[in-house]
Structure formats: structure tokens, C-alpha cells
């Protein structure tokens, strides 16, 4: 508590001073330039900026509903994971040979540790009085390099992901909801046979009625493959996404393949 004068008076037996301070703003004419008080002058302007941002934010929210892919299925081996976009640069770095395998410590500890450590300790690394970016070339240069690196790695991660998994791009982390990977448009009136509906592991990717999801649409698969080929794909999988061996029973595979070959 601040020191009180000896003859200070208080409200009742409290420690609240009985002396009132007028609730008026001081003059800002002594300050240099066009300095203004925070309340209410500047806060009003700040609110206007915030309102404009809020409108933009709401437009984004309404036009792009947040994505929700299928319920988490740990057995879904075909799902290509992708972290949220702001972790992509770290994720991408770990893919390079100098930051993976035997060198993974380099990618998980050394590089991020040095980078974030330097950032955290920036005031003690850059101790000159100079504040202009052009007058402290080392700090500015390092930050610029880091920025270029982050932007490049983020771009590279996204680019690589869309190259390798063109179908799953949208259902990935940076994505916009689930999309049909189907070459053929899904026929919503199509209803799959009970043979299909018994196979939950198939439905996970190809949809309840074979309309496609993570995996392609299979509603007209009979045009492309015959029963033996389909049975082979079910058994052994097919690059890039289709895992084999999800159905163990050969008779069941044959029955399913037979049915699917009739879909034309």
C-alpha cells in the first residue's frame, strides 16, 4: 500500500481515502505531435478496425463452413495425415534426409531448438541500441532467411501433399471438408447391396453406397474390372491408397467381387 499522510482521512474504518480524485482526462497538449488519449478517442478507432476485421472474419466463416471428415477410424490405413497448416513447415522439414532417420534429432531438436531459442532470447543476442532494421543487418537477415524458409517449407509440404495424394488433398489437414475422390460423379439414388453393406472397412473409404469418399466411387466398377481383378485388388490392395487384406475370408471376397463386377 502506498504511504498515507498522517492526517489522511478514510471512508469509515476502511482503507479507502476520503479524498476524491476528479474523474477528468488530463490535457494532452503537452505531449509531442498528435498524441491522443486511449479512452475514448483511440479505442473508438480501434473498435472500427475490429469491426471491419469481424465482418471479414464472419464472411469467411459463413462461406467456408469448418471441415469435418469421417469419424476417427484407427484401422483406416489409407488416410494420409496432415497437420494443421501452421505446423506444416516443421512437418516438411522432418521429411528431408538430413532431418530424418538417424538425423531425426537434428530435425526435432537442433533446428527448432536453435531457431525458437534464438527468437526467445533475441533481446540478449541483439543488444545494440539501434532499432532500425537496416542498421542491424544480422538480426534482419536471419529473420528474413527464417521467413523465406518457413514460407518455402509450408508451400513444399502442401505441394508435395497435393502431388502425391491429389484425391485426399481436400480431406487433409489444410482441407475443406471431405470430397468425393470419385472419377465418376456419385449417384445418390444408387443403393448398394447387402453384400457391400456388410463390409464396414470398405464403406469407411468408398462410402455407404459406394459413392466414394477417401477412396474412389465404385458404383460402376464393373465397367473397369472383372470379378477376378476386383478380388485381387481386395486381397492385395492397389496403389496408392487401397490397402489389401482387410477381408480375410476368401469366400466373402469372391462373393463381394462377383457382386461388384455386375455394377455397370
Amino acid at each position, binding site marked *: 500500500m502506498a504511504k498515507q499522510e498522517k492526517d489522511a482521512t478514510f*471512508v469509515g474504518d476502511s482503507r*479507502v481515502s476520503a479524498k*476524491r*480524485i476528479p*474523474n477528468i*482526462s488530463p490535457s*494532452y497538449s503537452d505531449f*509531442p*505531435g498528435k*498524441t491522443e*488519449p*486511449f*479512452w475514448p*478517442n483511440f479505442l473508438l*478507432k480501434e473498435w472500427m*478496425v*475490429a469491426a471491419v476485421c*469481424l465482418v471479414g*472474419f464472419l464472411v469467411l*466463416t*459463413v462461406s*467456408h*463452413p*469448418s*471441415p*469435418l*471428415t*469421417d*469419424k*476417427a*477410424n*484407427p484401422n483406416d490405413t489409407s*488416410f494420409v*495425415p*496432415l*497437420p*494443421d497448416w*501452421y*505446423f506444416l513447415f*516443421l*512437418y516438411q522439414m522432418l521429411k528431408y534426409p538430413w532431418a530424418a532417420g538417424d538425423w531425426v*534429432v537434428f530435425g*526435432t*531438436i537442433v533446428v527448432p531448438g536453435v531457431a*525458437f531459442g534464438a*527468437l*526467445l532470447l*533475441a*533481446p*540478449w543476442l*541483439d*543488444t545494440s*541500441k539501434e*532499432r*532500425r*532494421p537496416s542498421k542491424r543487418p544480422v*538480426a*534482419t537477415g536471419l529473420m528474413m532467411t527464417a521467413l523465406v524458409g518457413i514460407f518455402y517449407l509450408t508451400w513444399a509440404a502442401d505441394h508435395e501433399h497435393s502431388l502425391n495424394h491429389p484425391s485426399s488433398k481436400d480431406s*487433409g*489437414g489444410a482441407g475443406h471438408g471431405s470430397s468425393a475422390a470419385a472419377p465418376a460423379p456419385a449417384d445418390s439414388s444408387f443403393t448398394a447391396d447387402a453384400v457391400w453393406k456388410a463390409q464396414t472397412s470398405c464403406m469407411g473409404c468408398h462410402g455407404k453406397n459406394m459413392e466414394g469418399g477417401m477412396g474412389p466411387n465404385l458404383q460402376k466398377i464393373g465397367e473397369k474390372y472383372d470379378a477376378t481383378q476386383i478380388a485381387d485388388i481386395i486381397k492385395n490392395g492397389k496403389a496408392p491408397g487401397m490397402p489389401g487384406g482387410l477381408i480375410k475370408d476368401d469366400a466373402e471376397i469372391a462373393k463381394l467381387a462377383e457382386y461388384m463386377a455386375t455394377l455397370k
Partner: protein
Amino acid sequence: MLQKMYDWVDERLNITPMWRDLADHEVPEHVNPAHHFSAFVYCFGGLTFFITVIQILSGMFLTMYYVPDIINAYESVKYLQNEVAFGVIVRGMHHWGASLVIVMMFLHTLRVFFTGAYKKPRELNWVVGMLIFFVMLGLGFTGYLLPWDNTAYFATKVGLEIANSVPIIGPYAKTLLTGGEIVGAQTLSRFFAIHVFFLPGALLGLLGAHFVMIRSQGISGPL
């Protein structure tokens, strides 16, 4: 009437000094976009806080429907998204706000860095700011799992594998976060607790320190 109510409270609690303290700090010309348009770069800190407030409010509304267990989590998010009035908006604000807050914070950090505002005497505020940055990334990471869809599940799995590859502390960190051998029921509970209680608590404390420091030191002068 209003004045009388104010005086009544003021007589008992002496709130005027506090009120003047909040209202009377000066905003110098060089940070005021109304005078120099380029000063809009000084807005990013305020906007980060603004979006953080939106995140807290929308998050509070989301927990009115969200159920943090592996059976119901996905269904509750789906219900919220498709059935609840304005649920899609509230979840959308929280989802996009999470990205936006990172963007704003990133820009604010760059502004502070390139104007050299972290130098003496503001070192501690910079450190607190960096800690806020890490807490925000933690909030992003833990919040990402909560919808319990495939995207969330596998991204978290990868994230935890990366944590696991860190020598010595990695496996401990992974066990602490997953609460077991696999990413499952226990993991979701832990991520929920971290996302909703631990990190927001830390965030509010750090934000308080951040604001007290900027108020007592004042904003850095023009370049």
C-alpha cells in the same frame, strides 16, 4: 443517475484512479493509423487480443454441446455443425479464428521484431510474448484432435510420433499426452483438459503480464 451510481461506488472503493489509469494512457502519433496509415502494423497486437476474446467466447459456447469422449465427441460435433442453430457459425468462428489468431500473432511478432521494440527495457515483455506464442501453438495442437475425425486423429498421431522421437524426454512427453499406449479415450480426455483448462489458464496469466508490462513501460518510440 448514472453519475450518482458511479459516485456511490467510488466513495466506497475509490475506483477513479483505476479508471483514469485505464483511460488516460497516451497513444502516440506514430502508432495511430488515423495519422499515418502505415501505422496499421501496430494494430496486429490488438487484433490478436480481439480474436483471442472471440476464441474464448466461441469456445465457451462450443463446450455447451461438445462431449469429450471417443464415442460421442464426433457425433456431438456433427450435431453441433448440422443441427444446432448457428452451430455452424460458432464452430466456424472457432475453427477459422484458430488460424487467424496465429496469423495475427505472427504479424505482431514480426512488427515487434523489425521495429526492434524488444530491446532494453522491454526484454521481459518479448519473452512473455514468445511464451504466449508457444501456448497458442499448444492450443492449436490440442484443439485439433477434439472433433475426433480422421483428420484430427491421424494428425495427432503423427504429432505424437514426432514428440516421441525426441531423445530422453520424448517418450515421457508422449505418455503424458496420450495417457497410455495408443491415441484413444484417455488421449482425448487429456487433450480436452489441456485445451480447455491448462493452456487457457496459462494464456490468461501471460496476457495479463503482457498488458501490465506494456502499460507500465509504454509503447516503444518512433524509429
